[in-house]
């Protein structure tokens, strides 16, 4: 089965069921990601300054008690802008990933269980889609439709659907080939039951891992677009936009450029730490 090279482990049998314990690195990763998710949710209630307010007379002002991360190129509070930026950076990426995984996952399992012509048609279609580099697809759609949050969510979701389809299909094909699915099929069970009861519970682990990886890709793509000025548009700003608007502070090493970039890195590395430290049977290696 050459199409299934992406799979490293599926539903390892005969292992006693035990709760797994996440190693320290994984706990740190989970902590960082959890922290940012909380910030994204409660952001508006805890910001020290209004995101648009000019609070500093200096541009790229230095850090001090009132402005813990200094000020940006217009003299706005960097900390407040990062806190609010979390909503866009994490929210848009999460929404797009969720959509992509929902569409790709459902179709992937359907293809695996139906086999034959349905599988063939879906696989060919997504193979062709995946052969357009993700940044190119994004640029084409944004060139045509302009950039708004719904367009970004939709575009990134469509971009990552073929990848999700591939992984889910490959995982489901592996489980589908196992004898207990054959037994259920010989019993006369329908497609819905096979997907719901026999396949889904046994690919849940790797599939969650895949969700995490895809979220990282989506976040990197979105922040890259924002950095190019083609992502989240002013007056809203995600972390990528913050780096872009403050790029002139680069020569001075201003925190206004560095901190948003560090925030992105902390989330993506955090997710990776969690994924790398999951037990083997959860793993699935995604493609870039």
């Amino acid at each position, binding site marked *: 089965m050459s199409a299934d090279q992406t799979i490293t482990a599926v539903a390892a049998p005969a292992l006693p069921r035990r709760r797994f314990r996440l190693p320290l690195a994984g706990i740190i990763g989970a902590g960082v990601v959890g922290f940012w998710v909380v910030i994204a949710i409660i952001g508006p209630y805890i910001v020290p300054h209004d995101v648009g307010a000019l609070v500093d007379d200096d541009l790229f002002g230095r850090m001090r008690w009132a402005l813990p991360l200094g000020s940006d190129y217009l003299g706005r509070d960097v900390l407040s802008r990062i806190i609010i930026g979390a909503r866009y950076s994490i929210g848009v990426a999460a929404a797009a990933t969720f959509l992509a995984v929902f569409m790709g996952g459902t179709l992937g399992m359907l293809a695996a269980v139906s086999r034959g012509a349905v599988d063939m048609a879906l696989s060919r279609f997504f193979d062709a889609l995946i052969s357009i580099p993700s940044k190119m697809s994004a640029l084409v759609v944004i060139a045509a439709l302009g950039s708004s949050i719904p367009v970004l969510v939709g575009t990134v979701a469509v971009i990552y659907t073929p990848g999700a389809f591939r992984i889910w299909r490959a995982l489901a094909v592996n489980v589908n080939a196992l004898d207990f699915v054959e*037994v259920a099929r010989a019993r006369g069970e329908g497609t819905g039951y096979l997907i719901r009861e026999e396949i889904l519970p*046994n690919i849940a682990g790797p599939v969650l891992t895949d969700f995490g990886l895809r979220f990282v890709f989506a976040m990197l793509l979105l922040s890259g677009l924002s950095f190019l000025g083609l992502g989240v548009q002013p007056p809203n700003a995600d972390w990528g936009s913050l780096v872009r608007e403050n790029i002139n502070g680069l020569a001075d090493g201003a925190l206004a450029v560095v901190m948003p970039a560090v925030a992105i890195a902390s989330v993506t590395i955090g997710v990776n730490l969690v994924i790398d430290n999951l037990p083997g049977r959860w793993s699935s290696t995604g493609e870039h």
Partner: protein
Amino acid sequence: MAPLVKVENLRVTARDERGRLSVIVKDVSFEVQPGEVVALIGESGSGKTTIALSLMGYARSGARIAGGKITFDGRDVLSLSKRELSSLRGRNITYVPQSAAASFNPARPLLKQVIESSQIHKMMPQAEAKTEAVALFRELVLPDPEHVGERYPHQVSGGQLQRLLAAMALVTDPKLIIFDEPTTALDVTTQIEVLRVFKKAIKERGTTAVYVSHDLAVVAQMADRIIVLRDGIIREVDATGRILSEPKNDYTKSLIAAAEPHTRATAPGAIQTKAAPPVLEVKSVVAGYGATDRDGVPVLPVLRDVGLSIKAGTTLGVIGESGCGKSTLARVIAGLLPAARGEVLLDGAPLPRRASQRTRDQLRRIQILFQMADTAVNPSRTVGRILGRPLEFYHGLGGDQCRRRVAELLDMVRLPAMMAERYPGELSGGQKQRVNLARALAAKPSLILCDEITSALDTVVGAAILDLLAELQREVGVAYLFISHDLSTVKAVCDEVMILYAGQMMEHGSRRALGQRPLHPYSDLLISSVPELRQGWLDGISENVLKEASVGVARPGRGEACSFFERCAVRVPGRCDVEPTPLRSLTKGAKIRCQRTEEELIDLSAR
């Protein structure tokens, strides 16, 4: 004389994937005298391969030699440096692994790999090593010894690869050869020729050998002395003859009991039901993979014109080697692989070819059990839910009724009722196979298709499952189609036996008829190839039977000519490979598919 190998209090530990440490070899001590063949015998997890590898100072990843002392030829193996170990391996101690196909580097020609150790250790110039290797190929009865070395591993058959591995081990003329289950991956008719060649090579050279195996009958042919292992502990050590005739340890006794054939089939009952109509009939089924041509024959035919019938409450055994189509037969009957031609009748009524077109009651009456107990149960559902589903699906049971019935089913397969709350991951292989059996019984079927259900289990566990099958047949009167590659298992449980070769039925008759001559030439080869649990069996086999056995390969062709032609010792060229093979009824009551008449076969086997 000083022993060649002396192992004292060997202790090997291993870490599993969760990082937990366990001791897999516990305080093992033994000696191997020069010129002696010592067998390490045990089931999976007994530590036999681990011990054998540690003689070379080698532990697989995750394992560690934690203590003890190994002396080889006066040298302390465990205190050698890496460089010294390398100079020992492949030169003084060589290794013949189980899987020949995986042990050859696919990217290099065979000869290069066979002579590699002699080149690593700079023992002889390359040209000399090549001559040496060709001589070995000839000795090991490899076809075309001059040129076989130029081929690549995937171009050579499994039996030949195994012999090439032996050549690789012999080329440096080592002091000790370790054979690690060298014939386990082979079919029984291929195994016998390889065993004979190995034995001859060992005897002629007087080589010292350690022979690792799980198969007592094979070991009985090869070893002078047997070490019985279980859970990393030595249970018994004795000369081969004494182990076989008067085992002292209980575990050894159970091993021997499980290996000895004893009949469980419902012989008397079966005769009474003889008049009863068959529960299942299969008529001239053709099945395979790929698109079908105009005659309805698939591109890759697996079953060619196979027919059978099973009477209610009896067992039909289907036996054949890997690739003969026996599992495909089960899948065709279950409707998982629709037949291209022919029909399947249940109680005289034809069944739709696809499972999805069959009625729920038709589906209920035929249940299927698979070889891999591990993969046949959904690992994320409890046993109770696994057994409850067919009850709900076929019988509409729910709630308390369902729970009570689950407990009854568990009791029928001799599992405690509290198993219902467990997940499959917490069960052993044998327990999982019992759960599978219970799930099949939950449907109240009239026929259960058993596809190699004991092959993946250890002998003792498998024997218990066979006992259970026989008991259940007496209790509920279910019929079995029992598929296996193992003749003794089939003989033990079946009333009737069908022998399949490359998709063709070769012989079909009662169990008793299988013990009477004349036999179909393939049946003859198959029966005489099964190792018997007595010393000297291997040396006593007639050359005639084996003459062609290991040379040809099975190829399911498209025509109706005999597929055994290439390997048959009594073939008639120009007839067997051209004309359709007729089905003949023998006076012993069996049917065979052969060009030779009964008289001819009697004559030929007398010679």
